[in-house]
């Protein structure tokens, strides 16, 4: 299986295999942006108000160890949440497709 096949799987999963290649790539990239933003929001949603300010401050510091320690302590389920967020975005996309198709 090469990357062309992988690309084909991807666009079939998204139901965009009949679109022009340029459009396919743009849609994939836009969906990626939405996923990244959604994960960002999820992180903030999991933090208490005071934690949000601390998070922004820590990320500005650039201290990798501190960032990891903070996230590990405040959002221990972060990996699961990230995974769920990706699936949620994909599910929302497919659901919206179904809805639009059927009016």
């Amino acid at each position, binding site marked *: 299986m090469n990357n062309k096949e*992988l*690309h084909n799987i991807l666009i*079939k999963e998204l139901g965009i295999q009949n679109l022009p290649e340029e459009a396919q790539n743009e849609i994939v990239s836009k969906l990626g942006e939405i996923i990244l933003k959604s994960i960002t929001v999820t992180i903030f949603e999991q933090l208490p108000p005071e934690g949000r300010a601390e998070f922004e401050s820590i990320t500005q510091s*650039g201290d990798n160890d501190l960032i990891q320690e903070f996230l590990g302590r405040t959002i221990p389920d972060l990996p699961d949440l990230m995974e769920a967020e990706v699936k949620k975005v994909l*599910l929302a996309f497919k659901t919206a497709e179904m809805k639009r198709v059927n009016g």
Partner: protein
Amino acid sequence: MNINETPAHAPQQPQEPTLTQESFEEASRITADANRGGQKLIEGSNLVIERARRGGRGTQAEGPIVSEAIKDTPNGSVARLKKVEERLDEIAPQGIIIKSSEATEYDELALELASLKKRLSVDVEVTEKTLPSAYEAALKRLSEKKSVEETAPAEVLEGTPTETPEVVAEGSEMTPEEKEAQIQEILADMTNGVNKRAEEAGATDFVRNVGEKWRTVDAKYKYAISAGLILSGIGFAAIGATAGVAAIAGLGTVMRMLGGAAMFAGFEKFFNNRHEKKLGEKPDMYAKDNNTIKAGALAIILAVALPEILREHIQGAGDSIHTLFGVGTAEASNVSTAVHEVSNVPVGTPWLHAGLHDIPQEKLAELTTVKAGEGIWNPVRGQLAFAHPDWSPAELNAETHKILIENKIINMDGTEIRVHPGAHVVVHPDGTITHNGGAYDYKAPVVEAPVSPSTPSEVVALNPEAFAEKADIDVRHYINETFGNKGFFGFGATTPDNIESITAWNDPQTGFAHHTIAELNAAGKGPMMLEAHRDYGINNEALRERMKNSIILFENSSGVKPDINEKIGDYLKRATTAMYMNQAQK
């Protein structure tokens, strides 16, 4: 292989899936409720897929399950489908999850099931009448009713027009332009929804920065990263591990650069450690792939707040990163490049491997210098080891081997490019290699030269039996990881100790363990050995290539040359035993 063949016991028309409007609406409502929480999402998606699963399978009285009604595809999708169905029934009989701890697995399996069904319906060109996927059947059924109410998850799709859109007439099809416009509208709605969530969470500025930074990223990298994220959501198990590994190998490099190598590596280790702590076992290949993607995503998000790191690592990437997924073009990717000679080693420049920016010049010189009697293997492996201290020896060997193959440093015909001692070899972020030494072809006696199967006499004195048992276990693990269900095409053992079940390795006719290297080299040049096993073991071209690569890997790691008349299984054990004994001598 005729996918439309129906076994005698099966009815001519399999039961149409019964994803109902009601069930879809129910799932959609739950999904909307779950918009702000991870667990409810799982429940929501479970329901959607569960409805599809129930519909797709039907009951015994109604007709056969999909996986029993059709023959398998070359990559074993139907077999995998059956396994997934069985596991789902095991975890959730009657659609009810018995153990909450298995909810995540259930969710992944359910998504994989839907993915497999959908893929099968496309790949094997099954008509909608004979084998519609649950998804397609649902669309058809809902379309026929023409009375869909607002069912989309409102919170997910905030910004969606509330009026009922125009109904698509039955039988009519959208043009590509209409379809694209529709999807763009969906994406715009989803973006609005995320922005609104960000506002409520007090993350507006942070999310805006993510968006702004994203817009500065080159289109081809955007595509590669997005594809990785989406594929991680689909599930690498559903895609096939080979594809997943290939994708992640490239994506990891891009994400390391965009997110900062140190941060990326830190999160990757963090996620893998957490997996081990939570489940009490090391992450398998799929879990590692997922962790790589998640680590990359997190590093990119946080790199927005760390502009210096981002700038440092994005500089120099330029166009040197070769196509990933045919980035931007959808063409098949070929990362392989010729070896480029350079006049000066770019020490201290961002052209070095992503993890080698901050090391002292002396150390860098040591890592890049080719020593007398050595090939390019050692400098490459050494640089990787320094950049990735958390990688295991096996991972380092595999990556080194992959880089050397892709750069055509070593070839399957036994030739190898070598440079003169003292030259410098540099591994770049995209996996390409440059050097400043005179290159010459070196004929490595990879498989041509029969050698005595005996190990060196001084090594024998160390009692090889003591190491043979350990070698046997490790070879089993290696094969399981590389050719078993954790590593290739989804078939094989379910546990590391169940190696005997791996068809590709142990099948009497086609298993690699029972064939010599000479037979491996000759395979594929004549008729298939057995029709029943035509896609397995030595009859499978992709597996053959992987096995040839494995043999080179074992030879490079152990220094033990294979005998062309030696069985592959025996050679791998012999090489591994020698490797341990050599290590023990040092």
